Structures are given as C-alpha cells and as structure tokens.
C-alpha cells in the first residue's frame, strides 16, 4: 500500500499490465464461439438464458439489442482431496517440528459473459460464451481464473442446441 501511495502513476502502470491484450485471444475466441443456423438472434438469446438458469446462474444483465447476457452463481469450492492433502502435509511437518497452515479453496463465484452476433449474409448467429471464477481460500485470499477448458463452452452450446431442438428449431 505504501508503495502505491508513493508512486503516483501506479494506477496507470497496473492498467497497462493488467489490461494488456491476451496472447491467446484468437484461440480463446474460436474455442468459446459457435455458429447457430437461425436468423432470429432473440430466439437464441432466450434459449441461452434458459440454459443459464438451468445451470443455476442468476442473470445479472440482459441487453438483447446488443446481444449481451451476463450472470453469476455461487458454489462451494471445497475439494475433499485438497483438504485431506493439506492436513496431511500439516501433520507431517508438525511431526518434524515445522508449523504449517493448511490452505484449501473454500468459496467460489462463477461468472459468465455471453454475447451474440448476427451473421446476416449467412443467415446465422454467432454466440460466444466466457466463464471465469473467483476462488477464496480458507485464509481469505482470492484468485481469479478463466475457465477456458473447451468442455465448458462446448457443453453449454450442446445444451442450447438441445433446448432449441426441443422447440422444433434445428440450429
């Protein structure tokens, strides 16, 4: 904190570093996007909203004219294996006379940003979905992570397609 107070330019320096373009932006975009062969963007957004709700997300922002949906959900981040491992390390080190505070993930907030873009010349709509989470451990420290494994977006798109199919829409 003292360092920040002394350096008047700290906010700019942080913004330059933290706001730099992602080196793998193109790959991420491809991985998180899918094309739906339907002309009505609103129909796709309605189905995407339903899937998000099925997955337990609360919709926090919806701007259909710009093709934007955003939501979040809370989940317990505790994993038995991680807790057991940390306690085992603590016990082992205690036997050697070394004090160790076991650390494990406790809470997490998962956030989603979903955007759609009409591809008018193709008669289709492109959808992109991005997930991230903020994990707080048992010591109160937090970290932010992108959830960019392909399964997250492909699983989501699959559910949207199933939902559309149940309404008789092939996309």
């Amino acid at each position, binding site marked *: 904190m003292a360092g920040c107070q002394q350096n008047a330019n700290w906010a700019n320096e942080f913004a330059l570093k*933290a706001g730099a373009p992602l080196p793998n932006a193109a790959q991420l*975009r491809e991985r998180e996007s899918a094309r739906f062969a339907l002309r009505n963007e609103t129909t796709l957004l309605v189905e995407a909203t339903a899937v998000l709700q099925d997955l337990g997300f609360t919709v926090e922002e919806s701007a259909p004219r*710009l093709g934007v949906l955003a939501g979040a959900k809370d989940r317990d981040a505790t994993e038995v294996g991680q807790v057991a491992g940390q306690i085992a390390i603590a016990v082992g080190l205690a036997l050697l006379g070394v004090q160790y505070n076991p650390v494990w993930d406790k809470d997490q*907030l998962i956030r989603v940003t979903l955007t759609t873009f009409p591809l008018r010349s193709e008669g289709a709509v492109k959808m992109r979905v991005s997930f991230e989470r*903020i994990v707080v451990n048992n010591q109160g420290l937090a970290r932010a992570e992108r959830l960019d494994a392909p399964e997250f977006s492909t699983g989501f798109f699959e559910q949207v397609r199933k939902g559309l199919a149940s309404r008789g829409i092939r996309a």
Partner: protein
Amino acid sequence: MKMRSFTVLALLLALVACAPQQPANTFVASTKPANELRSMQTRVVEADRETTARGVIATLQDLGYRITRADAEAGTVSATRLTGLRLAATVEERSRNQTIVRANASVLALGRETQVDDPNFYQANFFVPLGNTMSRNLMVAPPDGSGPAARVRWLNVCRGKDKRRQHPANRRLPGRDFLSEGFGDHVEY
C-alpha cells in the same frame, strides 16, 4: 417485558455502533486537462452506432473483460477485468456512418477508484484491438468532436455492486485487492 425490550434494543444499538463501517470507494479523477483526457479516450470509427457498440463488446470480451452492463439506448457498455480494472465505453453517432467511441478506465483498489490517464493504455489496450476486431482504422476525434464527457466517469460503477460485495469473493480482506490478484502468480489472465 419492557425491561427485556429495552435490553434487546440496547444490544442492537451497541452492535450497530461496533459494526465496521464499509467505506464507499472514493473516485480519484485524473488531474490532466479535460481536452487532453478527451483526446486520449476518444476515437472516430467508420461504422454505424450499433455495429460499433457490438464491436466494442466483442473487443472487451476478447481482452478478457466481463461485461457488467450494456445499454443499447444510451450506447454504454461497462466491463470489469481481474475485478480491479474497469472500463466503460460510450458510442455516439457523429454522422450517418461515423461513430464516436469514448473509453474511460479506472483501477479499483484500497477503497479508491483511480482514473487511468495514460494515452498508451487507451491506444494499445483498447483502440488498437477495437480497430483489429472491426477491421477498420480508427481516427483521432477532432477537438470539437466532443463525445460524452463527464457522465462517462460514473458509468463503470456497475449495477449490483452491493450484492457482489456481500459474497466472500468480494469482501475486502487482507491481500484481497488488485495487488494480490493482478500481480499474483496464480492469476491466469
């Protein structure tokens, strides 16, 4: 009965008095002249308003921001990255096929929201990616091309902030500000 009610009331008052006050984030505005700030934050795009707004949204998502608010009528988009960097953009029609984009970024840390006023940030970390996404050259706005000015400052105070603050992930805890998140080893952005 009256005595019991009084005791409960006294206890409640004591609890309220002892509760830690949640300080509101104070906004630290740039000290640079308004025209200099406007110049670094504003560009003109050869596209209509809706295309530009969608381009801004796609760019922010590419950059790893989370969209927190979008309003088609007002032409505003607010987004957050790494929980500590916020960016609000406005789009305003300049002529039939020209739109003015203005971006305003701030860093949230230590109970303060500090405005970013480095031209390199706006150019390298927003306008260049925006031009690439939209496949268009962005032009510097002429001095009279005044986009939205003061109101943009407040746009990135995202809706539902209070609700998010209640979550453990958003509580102000030791090491829970951008210093631990932005420069930490475990941040994957």
